[in-house]
């Protein structure tokens, strides 16, 4: 008898692995402390809001979200990810903010055949040669927002542009993205990563007299740069441009009114007119007492994406092929409006021009000004050999 029972139990367990799981485990590793914490916190809050609206479920299954802080260190992120993959055996991973951290944790996730839904980091490597069936990006490819700014600056007829960015690979990608669409004269200035005082650079900008300035300084660096830029009186002679990362709610909250008049690019804005977005913005404000940033919208979309895919495969998370198909199909309504996934699992979508000004309630915030690109894909998809 005992033997037969064991066989039965084993058979049941086997069956279980083919049929529906009883819950969904999501590993969320993000930057929740240090200077870059604002970004990770927004992604987390957006993600949690979606799960809350879905009554704590993803695709009808109870969701368990395991959250860990990577302290903006690839090493720490790698450890936390290993723990989630090997000990907690999560079904999905998400949350990473910074591309260098994504590149550090990616290989282990893919090797483990776990789906990674990136709610922010969109490194060129994973869009091109190293594209992977288990990697999806629900935000953008890193270059996209820079490309959009380049297009705007080109179209507006600026001739002499100065670029300020930290001396690290992300900064160099920003420059190449910008120059892909801006063909005029540029002068590039590379600063120390994590630099807080830009007095020396501002003096040089004053001397060089560019007609426009494009900067990509993520997190606290951008906050300081804009503050000091305005205080030095340069805003009267030079028009500021930045990708959406350097001009969203986190930065606006820290800088305030001096940011008014700055142009930036994004694939989403909180004033976009669609039902999903209106609900998201209203609920987010109610829940967290602040306006959502693009990071929050991306976290929210990541949760919706998992929800739709889990529902599609009827909770059968063991069937990786079916799950991949379901994710590729993108059967959820994004807060940014319609978009679809390219063959490299990166979005093909619109990009918009935003300007910072005061809204109806007198708050300093972003206002959508127009469309820069329609159905824009990234520059690396041709190098991706994934079917």
């Amino acid at each position, binding site marked *: 008898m005992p033997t037969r029972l064991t066989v039965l139990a084993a058979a049941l367990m086997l069956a279980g692995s083919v049929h529906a799981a009883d819950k969904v485990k999501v590993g969320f590793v993000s930057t929740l402390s240090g200077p870059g914490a604002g970004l990770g916190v927004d992604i987390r809050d957006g993600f949690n809001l979606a799960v809350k609206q879905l009554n704590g479920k993803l695709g009808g299954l109870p969701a368990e979200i395991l959250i860990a*802080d990577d302290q903006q*260190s*690839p*090493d720490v992120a*790698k*450890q936390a990810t*290993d*723990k989630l993959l*090997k*000990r907690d055996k999560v079904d999905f991973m998400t949350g990473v903010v910074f*591309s*260098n951290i994504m*590149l*550090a944790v990616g*290989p*282990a996730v893919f090797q483990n055949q776990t789906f990674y839904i990136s709610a922010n980091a969109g490194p060129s490597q994973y869009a091109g040669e190293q594209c992977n069936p288990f990697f999806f990006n629900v935000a953008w490819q890193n270059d996209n927002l820079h490309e959009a700014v380049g297009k705007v600056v080109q179209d507006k007829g600026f001739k002499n542009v100065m670029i300020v960015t*930290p*001396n*690290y*690979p*992300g900064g*160099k990608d920003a420059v190449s993205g910008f120059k892909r669409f801006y063909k005029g004269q540029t002068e590039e200035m590379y600063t*120390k*990563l994590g630099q807080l005082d830009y007095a020396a650079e501002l003096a040089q900008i004053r001397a060089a007299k560019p007609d426009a300035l494009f900067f990509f300084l993520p997190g606290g660096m951008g906050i300081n740069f804009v503050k000091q830029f305005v205080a030095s009186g340069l805003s009267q002679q030079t028009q500021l441009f930045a990708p959406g990362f350097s001009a969203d709610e986190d930065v606006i909250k820290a800088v305030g009114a001096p940011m008014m008049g700055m142009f930036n690019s994004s694939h989403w804005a909180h004033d976009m007119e669609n039902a999903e977005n209106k609900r998201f913005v209203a609920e987010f404000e109610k829940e967290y007492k602040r306006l959502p940033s693009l990071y929050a919208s991306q976290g929210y979309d990541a949760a919706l994406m998992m929800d739709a895919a889990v529902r599609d495969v009827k909770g059968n998370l063991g069937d990786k092929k079916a799950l991949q198909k379901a994710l590729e199909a993108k059967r959820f309504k994004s807060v940014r409006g319609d978009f679809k996934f390219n063959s490299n699992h990166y979005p093909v979508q619109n990009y918009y021009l935003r300007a910072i000004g005061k809204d109806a309630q007198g708050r300093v915030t972003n206002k959508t000004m127009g469309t820069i690109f329609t159905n824009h894909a990234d520059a690396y998809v041709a190098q991706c050999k994934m079917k």
Partner: protein
Amino acid sequence: MAFYRPARWQKPVAVVVLAALLALPSLLEILDQGYYIGFATRVLIFALAASSLNLVLGFGGMVSLGHAAFFGVGAYVAAICHQAGINEGLLVLPLAMAVAGLFALAVGAVSLRTRGVYFIMITLAFAQMTYYLFVSASLWGGDDGLPIYERMRLGGISLVGDDALFFAALGALTASMLLFSRLAQARFGRTIQAIRENETRMEALGYPVFRYRLVCFALGGAVAGLAGALLANLTGLASPNLLQWTQSGTLLVMVIIGGVGYLWGGVVGAVVLLLLEEVLLAWFDHWHIALGLLLLAVVLFAPKGVAALFGKRHD
């Protein structure tokens, strides 16, 4: 302070611990806790790095706040070898040791001209320089770091499996501890400890003090490089974060917690600190407060470190 002499119980305890460690991976597999093999490997590697600092600090009396530079350089040598297609550990590991050792030799040659606090600060300055150089070296990934997609081989054995790397790290640690233990009792070790106790006298006796210190410093750097190369293979990444001054601080904390100048100080400190991190982090988001208070308690109430609680240094 006095010369190091091994306690009588040391050998049997070390053998028992080694035997237990040899069985650990299989045990964790049985318990379906495979994740902890990687964690244990990490502890072994940090034990190695902290022990190498203990050689410099505890036996050589040189308070270096730039030890992470050699650790990080070792990691980068492994990653750069991987990038160049060299995956044979028997080549990579000695190379990492050689490069880190030579680098330490150069840093030491300049730094050892200074004393006390100035020495602490100049080693820190060199580490900061190395950090910024790697951050801006786009050829080696800059701030992103340099990934290792597939772990190296050792002889014919691939280290891709977690067990294999664990044993490799255990082997490296065991060999280094044997070396340090021999060294501490040999002429070189006695001389370097005597210099720690009374530099002026040793100089007057005609010992080439500077050269002894320099060799000790470089040897510590080389072993730190070995630890770095192993860590890069464990995490699959050599990143500039490994060279940050807080990393040097952490290694220093490990040695001090464990017990400065005790052969096992570095090992005990690494085990204690990493276990604390693992346990506290699960309970308390702000675990650094708890860790800080604990460190203060160690300074105030157990000034010689944990290793000292278990035994005396023989006079």
